[in-house]
């Protein structure tokens, strides 16, 4: 799990049976003590592998949306909740966004930068590669030093060689890392156990970074994990990125199975694509 704190933005991403949405109320409270007020909110997730294990308010997407609508300030009245389906019944993308009027007006200014966010979920990881995220028994290392070994051994360090990486290996298995490259963050989380293996990759980028950048990053991510199934959710004001995603992922042996597009106030366009390995 990861937390990123910018001057006017907070991103929290948590796995397991964490109750992420319970952070909203205290965040609003403590930020108001600093003279800040909440102006927009986006909540997203894939389909849980074990939905019945989730505690309230994560018991269903409907419960999550109702919970958010109750805790968010009333001025965030422009909201939308959407389920973005795919051809894989186990892969649905869940998105909720809410904003106030000031952000809604900002969105319509032509100078909005063309930045994008990738949220990638991978399952059925290659078992040989997944084994690299297990620690040896009594390895004598701290979570930090064992994490560094995994970052090097798996070549996660090559995904963005410019990034400063903060990594951590859990005992007996599992891995998390945050990458910092100027204003841009990236993050990886891995649950390597056979039968429910999972890895996620998330990063932000700019369309100005050149045509090869997006494809290069995606190819490296696929090569680290070699997943059987992968979903890529792209949030951007332009739909152009989605075509680059499909092209790059198909070059590393995966077929695009579905593509769903939806629009959200302030957030922009969300494109949800699923891929499976070409056997």
């Amino acid at each position, binding site marked *: *799990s*990861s*937390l*990123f*704190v*910018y*001057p*006017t*933005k*907070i*991103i*929290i*991403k*948590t*796995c*397991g*049976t*964490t*109750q*992420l*949405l*319970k*952070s*909203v*109320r205290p965040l609003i409270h403590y*930020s108001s003590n*600093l*003279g800040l*007020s909440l*102006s927009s909110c*986006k*909540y*997203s*997730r*894939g*389909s849980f*592998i074990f939905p019945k*294990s*989730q505690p309230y308010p994560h018991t269903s997407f409907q419960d999550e949306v109702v919970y958010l609508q109750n805790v968010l300030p009333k001025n965030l009245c422009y909201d939308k909740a959407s389920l973005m389906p795919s051809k894989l019944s186990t892969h649905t993308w869940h998105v909720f966004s809410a904003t106030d009027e*000031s952000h809604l007006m900002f969105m319509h200014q032509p100078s909005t930068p063309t930045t994008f966010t990738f949220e990638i*979920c991978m399952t059925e990881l290659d078992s040989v590669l997944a084994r690299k995220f297990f620690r040896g028994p009594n390895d004598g290392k701290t*979570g*930090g030093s064992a994490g560094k070994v995994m970052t090097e051994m798996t070549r996660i360090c090559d995904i963005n060689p410019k990034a*400063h990486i903060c*990594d*951590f290996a859990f005992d007996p298995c*599992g891995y*998390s890392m*945050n990458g*910092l490259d*100027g*204003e841009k*963050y990236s993050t990886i*989380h*891995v*649950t390597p156990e056979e*039968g*429910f293996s999972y*890895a996620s990759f*998330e990063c932000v980028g700019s369309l100005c970074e050149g045509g090869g950048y997006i494809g290069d990053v995606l190819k490296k991510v696929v090569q680290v994990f070699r997943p059987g199934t992968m979903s890529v959710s792209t949030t951007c004001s332009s739909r152009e990125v989605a075509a680059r995603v499909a092209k790059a992922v198909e070059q590393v042996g995966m077929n695009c199975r579905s593509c769903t597009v939806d629009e959200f106030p302030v957030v922009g366009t969300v494109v949800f694509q699923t891929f499976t390995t070409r056997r």
Partner: protein
Amino acid sequence: MAASGFEGIEKRLELHFSGDDPMIGIGLRQLSFQTLEEILREVQCTVVSSVGNHFFDSYVLSE
């Protein structure tokens, strides 16, 4: 698939705030570590590692 195991799929929350004084420019980064830990207790997470740069602070969390 196993009947039950560790849930890898993450929940992701992104919040944007307004009202930051651009002269100071650190806004939410003024939240103390203790305050962040208190917020994370609600989520059932703790900080296991952290690093920051000129632009933002990042925390690796338990779970």
